[in-house]
């Protein structure tokens, strides 16, 4: 049985922004031509530096925003940039794809009790479910994410950061989704709490056969969680493959630099660091050719002329003329 839950082909999302003093508009290519698949029970991690388009991808996959171009199939439903979904399709899809955001403080309504927060998605999307059923579902969910029954009547400010993140995960699970998009789910948490949440996610995935699109800039967390990894730079996928291959034998110079820049919690390890010069270029004005070329130590004339493509047919593809 094919249990592919996400199939993305050439997904792009562009934003028109006003261009400073001249009153013109410019286009930010926040996401360009991303293709990937994700199966039930598996975790695909998306890594890359600030502004490379990770959250944009999350918003497109959860249909908070439409792709500018490309095709997206979610749990069997085709979503196309030029063809709007019917309301019924939307509702069904909302239920099967849910998102958890980074900020456990901003994403919960401070005026609602935890019970109300958990029940709201059901109230909106499943009007036929009775109040008693909703409440029971919410109470079961509290137990599932390791919170206590008495928490049902409390307000978000009474909880710690880790507990709030549990609540956010619980809310996302209320509609029994098959896909969970996790946008930096542990970045705001202390190490001791981070491990509680990661354990919870692992457990829930095993129990419910969930597919995770896992966004994180912490590579040690990604290494722990991911089956597959997709590395992005300035809106483009530059490398993807099985997590073990990408981590142990990176092929793109950027992936290699990213890995070598990540500090390892072992003071006895010899560091061999690739020094990257310069900053991330502006997405409003990306360099010609390969977007990484101004910072790349392998760049040659060809890299400055045209952008390398990623060969989707390969098992561990890379967008680079001189892969490692």
């Amino acid at each position: 049985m094919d249990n592919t839950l996400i199939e993305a082909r050439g997904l792009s999302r562009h934003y028109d922004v006003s261009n400073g003093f001249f009153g013109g508009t410019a286009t930010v290519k926040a996401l360009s031509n991303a293709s990937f698949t994700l199966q039930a029970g598996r975790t695909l991690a998306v890594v890359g530096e600030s502004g490379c388009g990770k959250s944009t991808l999350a918003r497109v996959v959860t249909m908070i925003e439409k792709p500018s171009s490309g095709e997206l199939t979610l749990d069997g439903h085709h979503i196309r940039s030029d063809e709007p979904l019917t309301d019924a399709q939307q509702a069904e899809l909302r239920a099967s794809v849910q998102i958890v955001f980074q900020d456990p403080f901003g994403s919960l309504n401070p005026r609602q009790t935890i019970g109300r927060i958990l029940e709201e998605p059901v109230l909106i999307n499943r009007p036929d479910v009775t109040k008693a059923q909703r409440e029971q579902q919410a109470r079961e969910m509290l137990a599932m994410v390791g919170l206590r029954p008495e928490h049902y009547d409390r307000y978000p400010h009474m909880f710690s950061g880790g507990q709030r993140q549990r609540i956010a995960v619980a809310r996302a699970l209320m509609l029994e989704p098959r896909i969970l998009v996790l946008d930096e789910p542990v970045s705001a948490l202390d190490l001791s709490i981070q491990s509680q949440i990661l354990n919870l996610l692992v457990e829930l995935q095993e129990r419910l056969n969930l597919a995770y699109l896992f966004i994180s800039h912490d590579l040690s967390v990604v290494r722990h969680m991911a089956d597959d990894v997709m590395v992005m730079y300035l809106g483009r996928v530059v490398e993807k493959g099985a997590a073990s291959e990408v981590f142990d034998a990176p092929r793109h110079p950027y992936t290699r630099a990213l890995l070598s820049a990540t500090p390892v919690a072992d003071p006895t390890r010899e560091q061999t660091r690739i020094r990257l010069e310069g900053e991330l270029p502006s997405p409003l004005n990306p360099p010609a050719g390969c977007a990484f070329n101004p910072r790349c130590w392998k760049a040659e004339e060809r890299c400055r002329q045209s952008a390398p493509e990623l060969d989707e047919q390969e098992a561990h593809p890379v967008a680079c003329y001189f892969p490692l």
Partner: protein
Amino acid sequence: MPLLDVRNLSVDFKTANGQFRAVDGVDVQVDVGDVLAIVGESGSGKSVSMLALMGLLPWTATITSDSMMFDGVDLSRADDRTRRSIIGKDVAMIFQEPMSSLNPCFTVGFQLREALKAHLPLSRRERQKRAIELLEQVGLPEPERRLRAFPHQLSGGMCQRVMIAMAIACKPKLLIADEPTTALDVTIQAQILELLLDLQKDTGMALVLITHDMGVVAETAQRVSVQYAGQKVEEQGVNDLFANPHHPYTDALLAALPERATTKHLPSIPGVVPGQFDRPAGCLFSPRCQFADDHCRQVKPGNAPAELGHARCHYPLIKGVPQREAS
């Protein structure tokens, strides 16, 4: 004699619900050329203890200490003039939120020249020259142009470099860097940490690095001080700390690192840090500690000897085994 020697520092805040102890009897020693990392849970008093030293806490804070010696001067007893001649010049700090500590209304150059003016007898031209030098030193390309820029025109990494330039403008003997790279990408983080370590090596400047990233600690620090709920619970050289943590909190913290995981299930510390109203009578870590017994819950532990990392614990660990005989 250490460059910085703070003894028994405590900070209490007046809050709507009464007094709140944010820092509880902390000692800090830093030698010339030292790199000391301070780690610990969010809210454990890392920033507040250093802000107390800098004299930058609001009036709601009550600071007490036995002494705060810096380079032969007791800052806790020094008059305002003496303090001002030291703080910002010989002791400088990079703050946790870089964006909020640069003034958005003034150019980078203006702010840098003002910092120089406050402490050094330089002419206008000399100040401009030194400002350019400083930006070069922190690796900002085209320094003349950057001096005319406003903070919002620079990236996060560039702003952080400007902050460092301002902090090192007067060649401090001690630089306190509070989460200097947390908001930055790892490739930029690597550049900034390298810059700080170069400064430390080239000038003999001592560095106090506050961070929650154990990877950064492992790769930059010489010594590590671990804080929990306002107290220092352990201090050791960096290699020993990672190899043989003596306090159960340090041990649990290191075990929770995903990169040390042997299975999909990570060891985790149950519960949360105590707050203002549920501070335990005995050891502050006892509600979460896997080795706690009634003695721990009732009696506050003192500090173990130096060879046990000064661990504030009744039963300090050796290679993960609690030493029940020790007390």
